[in-house]
């Protein structure tokens, strides 16, 4: 499954970068995230709950590794998730471009392979669920960004 798009953050690139590297912020912003902890340099582990069609609240243990970091311009993520109803494996690339305002335009592309029961039963809905979760996450991150900017 390929998900890609752009999203505009209402703030400067350096602050967007900080938010994207903060596991506590990400844990709050990513829908269904129960825990997300930094376990090493650029390595995070956590537990996510995802609902896709008939699969409600399927838990995944996920590992995210950040790679190819060029602060504050771009980074890649290697994602590995395993759960009782399947697995997910893939990469995502995020590019941040600061524009006058200042605003930051994020361009993201991800290529994620999904297998097991969740692929077999939820396939019709995976893409729309993926898009919806991405949108919710990015909007939550933007709200956090604005809150931080507003408070100083």
């Amino acid at each position: 499954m390929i998900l890609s798009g752009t999203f505009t953050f209402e703030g400067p690139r350096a602050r967007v970068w900080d938010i994207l590297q903060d596991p506590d912020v990400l844990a709050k912003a990513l829908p269904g995230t129960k825990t997300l902890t930094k376990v090493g340099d650029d390595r995070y582990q956590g537990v996510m709950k995802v609902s896709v069609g008939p699969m409600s609240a399927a838990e995944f243990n996920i590992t995210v590794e950040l790679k190819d970091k060029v602060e504050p311009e771009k980074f890649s993520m290697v994602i590995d998730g395993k759960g009782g109803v399947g697995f997910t494996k893939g990469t995502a690339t995020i590019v941040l471009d600061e524009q006058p305002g200042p605003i930051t335009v994020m361009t993201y592309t991800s290529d994620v392979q999904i297998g097991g029961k969740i692929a077999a039963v939820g396939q019709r809905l995976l893409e729309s669920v993926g898009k919806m979760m991405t949108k919710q996450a990015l909007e939550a991150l933007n709200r956090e960004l604005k809150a931080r900017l507003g408070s100083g």
Partner: protein
Amino acid sequence: MPAAPPYLRARVPRNEDARLLTGRALFVDDVQLPGMLHVAFVRSEHAHGRITSIDASAARLRPGVHAVYTAADLGDYLKPGPILVSPPPIPNLVFHGCTQLPLAKDKVRHVGEPIAMIVADSRYVAEDAIRDVVVEIAPIDAVVDLEKGLAADAPLIHEHLTSNLAAHVIQRKGNYASAKAKADIIVKRRFHYDRGVSAAIENRAVVVDWNPKSEEMTIWDTTQAPIPIRNGLAAMLGLLESQVNVIAPFVGGGFGPKIMMFYPEELLLPWAAMRLNRPLKWTEDRQENFYATTQERGQVHDAEMALTKDGRILGVHDVFLFDTGAYDPYGLTIPINSQCTLIGPYDIPDYESEFTAVFTNKTIVTPVRGAGRQHGVFVSERLLDLAARELGIDRVEIRKRNLIGPDKFPVNHEIMFQDSAPLIYDSGDYLPTLEQAAEIIGYEQFIREEQPRLRAEGRHVGVGVACYVEGTGIGPYEGARVTIEPSGKVRCATGVGTQGQGHFTVFAQLVADVLGVNVVDVKVVTGDTREFHWGTGTFASRGAVVAGSACHAAASNVREKVLNLASVLLNVPPDRLELSGGRVFDTDDPQRGMSLGELSGKANPLRGAVRPGTEPGLESTAYFGPDRGSTASGVHAIIVEVDPETATVEIKRYLVVHDCGTIINPMLVEGQIHGGVAHGIGNAFYEKLVYDEQGQLLNASFMDYLLPTATDVPMIETAHRETPSPYNVVGLKGVGEAGCIPTGAVFAQAVEDALAGSGVEITEIPLSPNRLFELIEAARK
């Protein structure tokens, strides 16, 4: 209304229906035993990968779990399964047999391949424990596409081989090159046929009861082949065959995948039951069924037909790829059926067919109702349609010009059939069948009047007419034991399993006519190895032909015994005796006689002597083993209406004119045809398994995998013809698969006809509204 003798050709109500319809029939999942434990399987989520570690320790500690077995725990029992069907003796045949381990050891080769077996107090606990087993798999790129699978750089599924080629076979009749040289036209296309599931209502199930005191094992199994299962399991478990009893009780649909033998679950439960000394049960859930029960139909054909300008077929050349899935335990039955069935009822002097079987990272392929015959029929029927259009000849007319005449039988096609015997048609009368179908569907009138009238109204209606020939009733043999009991009732035991075909009725009809008893007094027993333990199974449309002929033979022997004994007791020559109404009597004085029950008592006396050369009782066991199968045939005709905006297809009429030799029970023949056509309609327009490029099955549930429902299956019209087979006494031919064999071909032809002028050409099955819409759109451009 009860049927009266003679029962042959009578619409005898089914003996088994009272039990089935009132919920009193035993299915495997009904078996409940004291102390029974339940089994679930950890299955691969990856289509292709190397197992790097399996940690079952947490699962073993879960309360309620009795055992967890992985490949490492199986010891000597960890062996690849047997090759079930050896390839026929075809010159230069290449076959690489690769079969599955009961639990994957180093590699997984398809999603759903079993990796660990969990035994627990309940299925709930066992399912929970699946998540406790940590399996690490390093994924390898999957082979999904057949052509890419044969490329030099394709990942190897079986690493001891040098490619993913599973088999390569060429069969020839005559010389196609010379046919091509003489031809006025060559019609050439690529055809695709894709995968589906068999979708039996009842999934697979196994219950095992090992009695350590009597050292006997009873296995209830949804198999179509209880006797070979018993023999194979006994050998693998180190038991005598007589220590193992396999019962295939009522089974909710077989359709082929249940003739696949020694599935991992079937091998593992008996083994584990002997170690745990507890009865075990496993019932497949629907999701597992999509991965773990065999499937069929992936083939790609590059075919051409050489014809004269007046539409006579000179030759056919076909090269195809066959998707055998991750392993090939069933050998080459399917692609050889495709090769042989392509010829159909037509006189094709020169024929060359070459196939390559390809391993893929998908569920194992074994026969599903039709078993490759669909593909052959689809290719030849579509090529004839295209030739007819190109030559400006009517579609029915071009078929008539090529049919094999009734004086040509037996017809030797000089190639090998799936039963390792030459493909010889025993009998047939094809032209009247085609004429009758065209007449009933009103072909001429539809083409000349109705279609133009409806087209003028802007409606898109089309007609299709397709022929087929079906090899049925192959050997090696089946047997039956018929016994007249002192009650006067007759018991008929045979080895074939039953999955809804009506064996309890058709076998009873054959026996009742021979012995002159009421059909409801013949109690048929099938699929229980304690009752009858010689035989092979229910497949290849052979139950009625082969087991039916054995029942007939055993009943005829018993009739001889009745006549001989009654002749002595009544002091009447045997040729003056008649059997009727459950009695044997003197035709000169019908009052002089006795009931068969009384005679049975006299045949088994408590005093006196059973004379040398005779046997006690009125009982006989007989076998029937034909050298080769008998050839059924028929014609399907269909009228459809297509909505070009939504690409939905409405089937207005569906007709099957069928010739399965002597008909035992027309009602059951119609039932088989109705079910088969429904299966075929699903195959043609609804059912398709969708795999992604990593071998993940994307529609493994009935939410996304569409089956035709009552609203999608039309009323099916039938007409029967009888050209008896010379290969058995009654003249029987098989009918179990006939309904679904030409369905895709006739559907495609009619849809194309409905869209005539649009440029839409259909060279693939299954279609769907979505796919048809794409074809209509593509033709517009």
